[in-house]
């Protein structure tokens, strides 16, 4: 590979390192596009056999000096982020260095800057696709390192020799490095710096499909976002009763200025049992067990499936910011794992009086509600009537922007009769309020897809949904006026697509669970499990050995120990001649270092000792370095050393 090809590869590698920045949105696309354009121009010039000076070097040097001031302005005013400004700076340096390399060899710095771009790229990435990127980058990075190593060696030896092809070697070392990294990854300490808070802060740049307020004054825009919010698994016996899943995340129970708000209250710590369980409701009916893996997308709020009455394996749980929503005290964590206990019916721990919502019910709404429920008087029957009426007579619009204008709940119910899930839920709450029944809007995630390979229900941001809870005097009952076939996740894909999605999700699950969210708790669990496994294994061995540990067993054990001792003795006797000589020299006060020859060690001995030992060293060298094997040399050395020692 020619020097020019290597130069082009180095430039392309720097460009490649910046590609994930487009997707992770750590910085805006404009600086990356400019960077890639400049680098591409440099590549084209180099490929044409010209210098890399796409911009005159003196201008670049001037820009570099000017950039010092620009960096502060960028961080403070333009990008308003030290991370983004630093990334801009690194990209600038990366474009500057090839031009500067005309004056001096700066391979080390160039590779460092490329590695910094790579770090910026992976630091903000959370998707499994970053892994192939890391591998491809590492392969070419290794090739570059090998090239630089070769060139430095050639220069040191003042030799001229063509570089051997390095792809195979780079592949070999990539495999070996990956294996080493695989072993190192779980062992690297996950103890966060307790003194300095995170410089980078949260890198998830997460936004949720849930909002703090359902604002009907502004048109809602819904974009498809497949980021996984939560995974829930449960036994097959539980699935018919607890699916489709509804993860509750927000409760909107106050209406003001055409907005549905969450009635704030103090965060109340919940009692935790000695075994780490937190009870949040009373259960009735049959119960089942489930397990959840959740990413925090709204503070540290928990998205609990409807029917949950107890949470296990979480730190301190608080009720808040509204009633019946929960959060945990777990700072600086992106995700959480917990066990759930779910019951067919749950009720609040304390019975309380629940007021009707403060939605300003108008007479048309009241008459509409009366018309829908007819002569039914039971609130739950009325709720079911309204749910059925809305889901069958109203049109669901997946994209609220298609309506094209601001719309109130009354408009939705009386005129437009179409909207998205928040309108359906708000409409039902308005109608229930008209009937004098307490009801509220619940925001969360609905449905999800079952991955048949892992057995997990996967709920994503695009599964955000709003439904209704109606109070029956003792407990909140769930109703969903949005047409079932149009709720999130109701779309049907082909069989192949489903399996592809399942495989992709399985990989993502492994990535999320074993890689992205691997933390100190996992590490501790790993060590505890390893310790317990070892202890159990020993116990099992002990239980098996104990019955046979009679005299007969003792004799066998003694025989085995004797064999081991003999083997050890044999190995000790078969020590290489070098070890024998080194021990002898050590006894004489001369330590043979790893870079020392025996002659050098001999020179440190007193003359008499050296003269006595010299023939043995000659003998050793003949034995060690001769092409012919001299079988008796080691025994001879041992014998003569023993004679010398005596």
């Amino acid at each position, binding site marked *: 590979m020619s020097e020019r090809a290597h130069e082009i590869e180095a430039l392309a590698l720097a460009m490649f390192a910046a590609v994930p920045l487009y997707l992770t949105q750590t910085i805006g696309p404009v600086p990356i596009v400019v960077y890639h354009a400049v680098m591409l121009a440099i590549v084209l010039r180099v490929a044409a056999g010209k210098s890399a000076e796409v911009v005159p070097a003196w201008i670049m040097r001037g820009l570099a000096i000017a950039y010092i001031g620009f960096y502060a302005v960028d961080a403070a005013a333009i990008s308003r982020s030290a991370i983004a400004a630093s990334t801009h700076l690194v990209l600038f340096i990366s474009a500057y260095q090839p031009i500067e390399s005309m004056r001096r060899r700066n391979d080390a710095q160039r590779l460092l800057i490329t590695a910094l771009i790579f770090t910026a790229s992976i*630091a903000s990435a959370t998707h499994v696709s970053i892994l192939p990127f890391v591998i491809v980058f590492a392969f070419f990075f290794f090739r570059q*390192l*090998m090239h630089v190593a070769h060139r430095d060696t050639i220069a040191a030896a003042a030799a001229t020799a063509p570089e051997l092809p390095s792809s195979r070697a780079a592949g070999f070392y990539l495999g070996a490095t990956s294996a080493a990294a695989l072993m190192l990854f779980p062992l690297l300490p996950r103890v966060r710096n307790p003194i300095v808070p*995170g410089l980078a802060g949260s*890198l998830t740049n997460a936004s949720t499909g849930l909002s703090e307020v359902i604002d009907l004054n502004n048109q809602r825009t819904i974009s498809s976002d497949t980021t996984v919010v939560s995974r829930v698994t449960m036994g097959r016996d539980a699935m018919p009763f607890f699916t489709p899943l509804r993860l509750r995340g927000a409760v909107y129970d106050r209406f003001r200025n055409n907005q549905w708000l969450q009635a704030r209250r103090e965060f109340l710590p919940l009692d935790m049992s000695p075994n780490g369980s937190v009870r949040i409701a009373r259960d009735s009916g049959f119960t089942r067990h489930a397990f959840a893996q959740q990413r925090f997308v709204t503070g540290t709020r928990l998205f609990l499936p409807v029917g949950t009455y107890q949470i296990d394996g979480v730190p301190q749980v608080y009720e808040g910011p509204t009633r019946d929503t929960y959060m945990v005290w777990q700072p600086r964590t992106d995700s959480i794992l917990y066990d759930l206990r779910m019951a067919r019916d749950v009720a609040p721990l304390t019975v309380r009086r629940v007021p009707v919502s403060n939605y300003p019910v108008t007479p048309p709404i009241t008459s509409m509600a009366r018309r829908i429920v007819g002569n039914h008087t039971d609130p739950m029957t009325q709720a079911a009537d309204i749910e059925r009426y809305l889901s069958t007579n109203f049109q669901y619009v997946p994209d609220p922007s298609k309506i094209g204008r601001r719309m109130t709940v009354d408009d939705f119910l009386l005129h437009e009769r179409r909207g998205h899930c928040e309108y359906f839920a708000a409409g039902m709450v308005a109608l229930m309020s008209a009937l004098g029944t307490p009801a509220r809007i619940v925001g969360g995630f609905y449905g999800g897809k079952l991955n048949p390979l892992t057995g997990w229900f996967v709920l994503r941001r695009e599964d955000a949904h709003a439904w209704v809870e109606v109070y029956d005097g003792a407990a909140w009952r769930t109703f969903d006026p949005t047409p079932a076939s149009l709720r999130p996740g109701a779309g049907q894909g082909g069989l192949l697509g489903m399996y592809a999605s399942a495989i992709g999700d399985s990989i993502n699950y492994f990535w999320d669970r074993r890689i992205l*969210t691997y*933390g100190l708790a996992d590490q501790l669990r790993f060590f505890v499990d390893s310790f317990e496994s070892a202890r159990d294994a020993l116990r099992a061995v002990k239980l098996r050995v104990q019955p046979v540990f009679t005299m007969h067993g003792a004799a066998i054990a003694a025989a085995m120990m004797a064999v081991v001792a003999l083997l050890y003795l044999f190995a000790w006797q078969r020590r290489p001649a070098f070890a024998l000589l080194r021990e002898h020299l050590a006894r004489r006060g001369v330590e043979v270092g790893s*870079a020392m020859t025996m002659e050098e060690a001999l020179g440190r001995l007193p003359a008499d000792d050296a003269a006595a030992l010299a023939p043995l060293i000659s003998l050793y060298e003949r034995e060690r370095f001769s092409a012919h094997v001299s079988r008796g040399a080691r025994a001879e050395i041992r014998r003569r050393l023993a004679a010398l020692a005596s």
Partner: protein
Amino acid sequence: MITPPATPHSAPSTQHSALPWQFDGVVRLTRIGVTFVLFTVFAGFAAINTGNNALYIGLSFMLGALLLSGVASKGGLKHLSVDFESVEEAWAGREAHGRLRVANRSRIWNVRDLILTSSELAAPVFVGIVGRRRDVHVDATFLFHRRGLVQLNSIDLYTRYPFGFFLKKRRVKIRGDVVVYPRLLDAEAARERFRPIDGEQHSASRPGPGSDVHAFREYARGDSLRHVAWKKSASLGRWIIKQTELEAGRAVHVVVDPYKPRSVSDDDFEQMVSEAATFVHEALRRGFEVVVSMPRLELRNGREIFRALALIEPVHEPFVPLVDRNSVVFAVRRSDERKSA
């Protein structure tokens, strides 16, 4: 005929003993290695500070690369051995070409970009690759500073492979003896010594190559059968050798006196040996038959002569050589005496 390389003795200034990258010890971090280590520390700090597992992945790769770099270079060098194969005629102060065999007994590691250095090598030797379980033969240029029997003891192996983070060194044993011929001086001095005998051709009254019979003597082991006097041997019943008279016009008799008084420095002695070697070399180059007399030795073969001059040691007892008026004598004298010729 002995033909020393044309390189003048002052030319090989590439002796590498003071090359800046050489070091004592077994490992040294290179500039790119320092950069990489600092960057790894930085990435480690960022990973711990943010708890970002993507950074931990990068950190794992970096640490893995560092670890592997150390293991690979050490594992590769550990299984290398170097054997001395041959060297052409070696003259002190002149480069001599030779061959080394580098063997890699490792089952895993190839070793690339290997540099061999030694105090006896004129310049570092670069070896592109020594594949695992393979050996390579490399040409090496030796440079010996002193005549005599030189024992090659060790050779240093350096490599930056695979990633150039570390410059690893290993000193390996090498066994080899080389007889280094004396340093050849400026040929002009030798020409001066030739002037008295140039143009003359007469009997030297000494045994040597020639046509006239000088004497008969008993057969000695090593004598050529071509010189057997068959008739005389038959009449006497034992092997008799016919010695011819040295023809001085085509012959030079050189006497090397190894006596070194204690007041004479070793350098003067070496200078004398070099002068003798230079004279003999010039004589051979001119086509003379050369006989060199040393204590208990009389040599005619050029290679043997130079070998003897390479190995000659000073003696502290005076030696009385048999000289005639045509002999060229090389000897050292005390500073108050003149060297005779």
